[in-house]
């Protein structure tokens, strides 16, 4: 199935993955090949079939509303790329004066 350049750019943006110009054509070709694989599903009659989202017929379990986890903020933030005063640092989001 053909995938337009515009569609691939849109998907890549939705997935927040930058794609460099050089790998764009080959990636597009590979994705089209994978989409072709899906054509087979059109042969299956599924009008009366209930979608299966999970292998188990589970209901969501509940538990008593009790605190079970202790605060581990420092430990959890040890692996973060950039942290200050217990906060995760990212580039400035709101434009304005410094």
């Amino acid at each position, binding site marked *: 199935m053909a995938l337009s350049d515009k569609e691939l750019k849109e998907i890549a943006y939705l997935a*927040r993955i930058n794609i460099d110009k050089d790998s764009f054509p080959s990636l597009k070709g590979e*994705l089209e090949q994978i989409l072709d694989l*899906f054509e087979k599903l059109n042969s299956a009659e599924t009008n009366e079939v209930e979608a299966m989202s999970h292998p188990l017929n589970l209901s969501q379990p509940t538990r008593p509303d009790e605190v079970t986890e202790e605060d581990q903020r420092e430990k959890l933030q040890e692996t973060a*790329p950039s942290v200050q005063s217990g906060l995760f640092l990212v580039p400035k989001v709101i434009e304005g004066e410094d």
Partner: protein
Amino acid sequence: MKLHELSLKEQLNGLKEGSFSSTELTKHYLDRISSFDKELNSFITVTEESALNQAKESDERYKSNKALPLDGIPIAHKDIFCTEDILTTCGSKMLSNFKAPYSASVVNNLSSDGVVVLGKTNMDEFAMGSSNETSFFGPVKNPWNKKYVPGGSSGGSAACVSAQLASAATATDTGGSIRQPAALCGLTGIKPTYGRVSRYGMIAFASSLDQGGVLARSAEDSAILLESMSGHDPKDSTSLNEDVPNFLENIDSPIKGMKIGLPKEFFERDLPNHVKSSTKEAIETYKDLGAEIHEISLPNVDLSLPVYYIIAPAECSANLSRYDGVRYGYRCEDPKDLEDLYMRTREEGFGSEVKRRILIGTYALSAGYYDAYYLKAQKCRRLVANDFTEAFKSVDLILSPTTPDTSFKAGEKSDDPIEMYLQDIFTIPANLAGLPGISFPCGSHEGLPLGVQLVGNSLKEAQLFQAAHQFQEATDWHKNLPEVK
């Protein structure tokens, strides 16, 4: 007999009888790892110091008669299981610096039964692959022939157990990632019923399909390890609240009268002669053991591959959105704004197969395509699962080859995603239906092992172990081990 040649069960007996200590056994494996793993590349991290400490503690427990069920047995964990304060990479650049702040329930369960952890094994990046060539830490080689791949995604776990660098290893299976490498490396590998093993702390790929399991040298060894790993876990909402039976209890019982189904859709496929003949021989063995063989039909099973390659990428695109360069893992250099941080972190941190799957999944879930792809795939998944429900009304187990062929040469399929996806044609259906499946060796071709697969009904792992063990009592294929130099 050398220590690494003993089965896990024999090692346990040796430790109990005091024939050798866990420290001796652990040192022996660590020596083998340092001698042979440079070339095989089956480990990402070797935890030598903590392994020796655990072995020492285990030896003390034996001395004071307080030994735990698996005390002192050296195993390896697939690097998808979080291990507290130890590098947990999932085979990705994205997590190449990630020390997990907590351990997976599987890791805790095994540790509380006394295992010694030798290290973390290599794998396809985020468990996406069938050859262990997509790892950021380099490809793993097949111990039977180093020009060939060990399979994937649990390729490191398979290679290290096959090369006898660990007694057994944990692994995970989303579409065949335990059973396919088991077949390609001459091992026994079990993927239990979905929900049998906790997914807490097991890095998520496709949550409705992922399941932890074992790679070992025999059905008996796999049963011992799986029993320790399994059990209800309140930390995983999809964990089954079911008792774990004694998987060894009926392992020695004859299988006379057991009904084994052969799906005609699988056997009608164009397969190489050596695959057909070794599978046929396995069927003959089962007949000799008194099993009844029946032809069955799974009419919708051919939908499995496309269904899987919509559902798994869809779930992966959601699960992997957490890797944003903010809270943990890799972050790109000098991001100019938040968007740039996300876009480049994910471009640079993920390898090409992972990116392909995230993009396919994003596409299948996006507005305008959701019904045509994702919803359609979920409906077709139901058709595949219903076929199994129907089949298990007349048979106990379903037999097929595990893979379409023996292992293949490194690089042979890495440029063709579809060719690689076909590796899992026989294993994917069990994941879609959430059923347990086991692969074990049944032959060899040009020096490379071949595997046969049995799929059982929900929660029937004990029956799978029994059938595989009875086969292994009657044959010697599982005793063949590669000579590692």
